[in-house]
């Protein structure tokens, strides 16, 4: 039950994009078409779940036993994430060229997605267990996919709309995100975390 609450909390209540402001760059940059937005969401979810596990292992088996968590946390997490993304890229390229083609340039870009590092730091902060970390990572990824796909759906429709010229592009996307964020505020208090 607790796992389900952590999962739902990360998907809707504290949605990474709309209420924690993590991963805004791909949210604005890769949300022009539903298909690519969805692929990006899947790639992020995949890396997030893996990096939740990797950072939990680093935090609990290396940093804490050696008393390094104050000084080396940021450096070690970012390195682990960067190498993990590289590794995932190589594995996908070997095992499934079709998926590799579909994800394209989005995979390497995930390294600098602050949602991934933010997730690793949040897991360390909340002192989740390994299983809880996995649920949290998967939920955060699912929440990201939900938000970016919805955004892409709205932006596809918006191409036929009459947008004032200064607001074209990112500005109107931000205003839409504001309205979506307002709607997601309705979930707050649903699960107390």
């Amino acid at each position, binding site marked *: 039950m607790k796992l389900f609450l952590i999962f739902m909390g990360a998907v809707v209540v504290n949605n990474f994009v*709309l*209420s*924690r*402001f*993590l*991963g*805004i*760059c791909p949210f*604005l940059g890769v949300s022009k078409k539903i298909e690519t937005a969805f692929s990006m969401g899947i790639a992020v979810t995949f890396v997030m779940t893996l990096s939740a596990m990797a950072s939990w292992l680093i935090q609990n088996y290396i940093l804490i036993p050696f008393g390094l968590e*104050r*000084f*080396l*946390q*940021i*450096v070690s997490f*970012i*390195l682990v994430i*960067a190498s993990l993304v590289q590794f995932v890229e190589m594995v996908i390229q070997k095992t499934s060229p079709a998926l590799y083609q579909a994800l394209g340039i989005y995979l390497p870009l995930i390294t*600098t*997605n*602050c949602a991934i*590092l*933010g997730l690793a*730091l*949040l897991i360390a*902060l909340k002192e989740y267990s390994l299983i809880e970390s996995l649920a949290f990572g998967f939920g955060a990824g699912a929440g990201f996919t939900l938000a970016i796909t919805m955004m892409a759906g709205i932006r596809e429709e918006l191409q036929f709309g009459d947008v*004032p*010229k*200064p*607001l*074209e592009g*990112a*500005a*109107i*996307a*931000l*205003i839409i*995100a*504001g*309205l979506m*964020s*307002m709607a997601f*505020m309705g979930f707050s208090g649903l699960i107390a975390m």
Partner: protein
Amino acid sequence: MTLLKDLTRGLWRENPIFRLLIGMCPTLAVTNAAINGLAMGLATSFVLICSSIIISLIKNFIPSKVRIPCFIIVIATFVTIADLVLAAFFPDIHAVLGLFVPLIVVNCVILGRAEAFASKNPVHRSIFDALGMSIGFTWALLLISIVREILGMGSVFGINILGKAFTPFLIMVLPPGAFLAMGVLLGIMNTIQDKLATR
């Protein structure tokens, strides 16, 4: 002359936030009060300037294949310093900024300048470029946070300026307000840019 050009580039023409739209996560997350926006701007400036100097100094020793991980380690080191200094001397601000201090590592402004400028230019030019970008980043953050604080709380830097008659729009200091304020400000900046371009 080149130095002056390096310095002013970040202020408007290539302003990281309003023109290039990079580094959006901290821009939206911590601008709910003027003091937080300013603190975030200064912390990012510190990391940007220090890492530009170091990267520009060691650029000839780094093999180009592993340059990105090397840049990230330099940046992460300065972020750790900034994090510990803020925690030691300004615990209140550190608590409010929270997660977003360590997340300066993945702020695209910093890695972007390291890759695009500091790794290709001598130290003195890199310092001026980093300084200009820092000022550009900080003023943008300060502007957004002042707008949000005035509308959301009726105050600036915690000092009430609109009096009791004003009903604050609480939504402006909550997450949706960040997106709305940034969207509208970006629209205004685009209008100004169009006016400047046609003149």
